[in-house]
């Protein structure tokens, strides 16, 4: 089966610019996650969707980050405006339900200059 797809794979922007990431989960997976992984650290959950509803966004910096999952399939994560500390790999994952193993995409490596 096809895995989780993410694009772009790499992005370099200047601080205060905006950026958007796209994720297409595995077909049939109801739960979708966005994680932020800073170099040398483990992934940190930013937001979790169940179908097209938000389950957990407690760790999402809502003043600059936003995410949506229209129609309960694809999802986009946006940062506006970006800060230097947002430099990280942004990982998207999906699972059949919130209690199953998660399948991760390859990630988007963001560099903010």
């Amino acid at each position, binding site marked *: 089966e096809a895995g989780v797809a993410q694009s772009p794979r790499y992005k370099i922007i200047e601080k205060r610019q905006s950026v958007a990431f796209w994720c297409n989960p595995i077909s049939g997976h109801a739960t979708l996650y966005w994680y932020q992984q800073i170099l040398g650290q483990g992934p940190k959950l930013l937001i979790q969707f169940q179908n097209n509803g938000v389950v957990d966004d407690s760790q999402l910096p809502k003043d600059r980050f936003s995410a949506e999952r229209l129609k309960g399939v694809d999802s986009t994560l946006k940062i506006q405006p970006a800060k230097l500390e947002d430099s990280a790999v942004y990982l998207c*994952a999906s699972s059949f339900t919130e209690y199953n193993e998660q399948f991760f995409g390859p990630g988007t490596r963001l560099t903010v200059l």
Partner: protein
Amino acid sequence: SQQGEEDPQALSIQEGENATMNCSYKTSINNLQWYRQNSGRGLVHLILIRSNEREKHSGRLRVTLDTSKKSSSLLITASRAADTASYFCATGRNSRLTFGEGTQLTVNP
């Protein structure tokens, strides 16, 4: 906040040896999962152990869970150079997965 803490932070062994990584956590959990991440790539799920299980095997992997000590261990037997990667434990609680900082395993040929 990060709940799982892996130990050691880095481990270097020779091919054919066994590798053991430990994970400790602070609060009650529903399950504990181990993931592998090769350099610059996404995470791959290795094994899930539920809170009412004590041991689980998958190929060359053996995971134990001691809920009384709030700890888990991952054993990789007969390691190969291809096992070189970062290994993360992740604790599942109320449908949220919280990752530790990882153990960097290097298997030398």
